[in-house]
């Protein structure tokens, strides 16, 4: 474990300032007594308490992330630190004061004094601990938040990168360029598909959900573009029952699955194959299924970019939208292909 000693020193100085303030407050209420003893006691108790709690917390494995031990160990550490601080601090302080002869006048009043100093130690210890605990916690939360932000931004960028994958983009443009001369009406149709695809891709991150009908239209845009490129090597079926057309889905949820099927399943296969996207209702569940007859799971692992990013991304979106009510199942289907099945609650 790595301890940031500079940080510790800063905390210690703050603790000392706090201890001096407590001693000064004590002196202000009892000006008839000397200022020296409370300062000595206060500094000793504070030093020991600080050392036990602040350095001790580093020894707990559970504090590695948040800086504080979880649950009982944390509370016991604070209680132990305050108790040890008081006992050790006062006994060292007693000796120290005896040397300077500061205690001579107080003999009769000892029990009273002890009670009030225990109270002061406990209150000051708790207040100090609480202060450091909460500043620590807010720093931790802030760190967490920037981290989460960074993750979200990275994911968004990666998603965009995977959807505007340069190979797909430039090959599509090359096809378009070829069509402009040979078959202008088809070129226009292809360009329209591409515009719709790009528009949907670029706005998907800002959009929550859209109807299943729109989802299937976007898939068709993409599959049509790929059909122009792959020719007879790609066949596809989109199966959306009309009664499910208005069901809301997270925008472009199925896109990464269809793309995976193409880039890892059908594109590497010499004969190509077919891809089927199907929506159906099973009781209270809406089931969306993407299956292909490509080269399957095992061989797909070897192709570049097959890092499971698409699947992870779909899982994450499902979890954010539906929590535990949604599931994504990915299996190698019969005849070498793959099948991804998504289930989430049907909206009545």
């Amino acid at each position, binding site marked *: 474990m790595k301890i940031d000693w500079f940080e510790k020193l800063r905390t210690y100085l703050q603790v000392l300032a706090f201890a001096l303030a407590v001693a000064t407050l004590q002196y202000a209420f009892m000006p008839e007594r000397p200022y020296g003893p409370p300062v000595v006691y206060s500094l000793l108790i504070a030093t020991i308490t600080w050392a036990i709690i602040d350095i001790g917390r580093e020894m707990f494995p559970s504090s590695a992330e948040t800086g504080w031990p979880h649950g009982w160990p944390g509370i016991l550490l604070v209680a132990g630190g305050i108790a040890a601080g008081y006992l050790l601090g006062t006994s060292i302080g007693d000796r120290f004061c005896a040397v300077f002869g500061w205690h001579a006048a107080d003999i009769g009043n000892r029990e009273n004094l002890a009670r009030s100093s225990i109270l002061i130690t406990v209150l000051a210890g708790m207040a100090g601990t609480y202060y450091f605990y909460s500043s620590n916690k807010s720093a931790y939360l802030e760190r967490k938040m920037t981290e989460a932000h960074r993750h979200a931004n990275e994911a968004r960028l990666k998603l965009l990168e995977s959807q505007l994958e*340069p*190979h797909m*983009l*430039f*090959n599509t*443009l*090359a*096809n*378009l*360029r*070829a*069509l402009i*001369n*040979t078959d202008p009406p088809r070129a226009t149709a292809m360009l329209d598909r591409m515009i719709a695809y790009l528009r949907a891709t670029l706005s998907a991150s800002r959009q929550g959900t859209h109807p299943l009908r729109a989802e299937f239209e976007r898939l068709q845009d993409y599959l049509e573009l790929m059909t*122009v*490129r*792959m*020719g007879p*090597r790609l066949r596809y079926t989109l199966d959306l029952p009309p009664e499910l057309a208005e069901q809301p889905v997270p925008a472009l949820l199925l896109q990464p699955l269809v793309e995976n099927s193409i880039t890892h399943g059908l*594109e*590497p*296969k*010499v004969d*190509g194959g077919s891809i089927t996207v199907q929506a159906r209702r099973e009781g209270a569940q809406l089931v969306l299924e993407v299956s292909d007859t490509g080269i399957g799971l*095992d*061989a797909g692992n*070897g192709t*570049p970019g097959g890092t499971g990013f698409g699947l992870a991304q779909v899982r994450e979106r499902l979890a954010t939208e539906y929590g535990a009510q949604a599931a994504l199942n990915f299996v190698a289907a019969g005849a070498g292909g793959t099948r991804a099945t998504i289930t989430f609650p049907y909206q009545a």
Partner: protein
Amino acid sequence: MSSTTHPTALIAEDEPLLAQALQAELARAWPALQVLGVAGNGEAAMAQALALQPDVLFFDIRMPGVGGLEAAAALADVWPQDGPQGKPFPALVFVTAYDQYAVQAFEAQAVDYLLKPVQPERLQKTVAKVQLALAKRAPGAMNFEATLAQLRHLLAAPAAAPTAPSAPLRLLQASVGAAIRMVPVDEVLYFEAADKYVRVLTAEHEHLLRTPLKELLPQLDPQAFWQVHRGTVVRAEAIESVTRDEAGKLWLRLRGSPARLAVSRLYAHLFKAM
């Protein structure tokens, strides 16, 4: 032979429209060029190139099954060098949608490179270069060597990039049924690609790894292990002798193993008497 008057070409491109477009652009840029055929994948391209023996190959880099680079490398290996009908190895032009191989580095070389969508002006340049190469192709062997060197470079480039700085692998974890067997890399005599797997051979045993050779290779110490074939990586110190058969092919004999390993033409440069 008609090819002495009319240069011939073969196109390998899996996207039908792009193959057509390239053919049309070539007809404009180089009317004398006769396109003998269009192949839709690497394997078909290899077979057709061997059968038709064209002067120029236009190979798409990313194709289903065997890609353009691998197809060219495999073709170089089986190309009839010094036969009675031995024709020089074709000029190579790779076509790709996206530049992942630092195009500029190769523009001055024996192998050329085209980006999709193919621009007529750029194609014109390629045509001029190929025509020049075909015209002064007398010292064919030298040309072939340069082509081999470049293919080697291209094949190595994308794999080496992401995992360059890490330390060489010391231990292999081979699955044996449900168990995992630890195999020290120091004991390995050679690796052999087998479909999606890699066979690992030590003096006593044979193991199977699920990692493709392409991913394993960058993790091996390049001083200790040499790639001698598309699918073979051998411990250099284990090589006992290198012999050339009647067909001019190189074969390795290993210490501690009865295996005879073929050396691909691409890697024949590793073995030269001092």
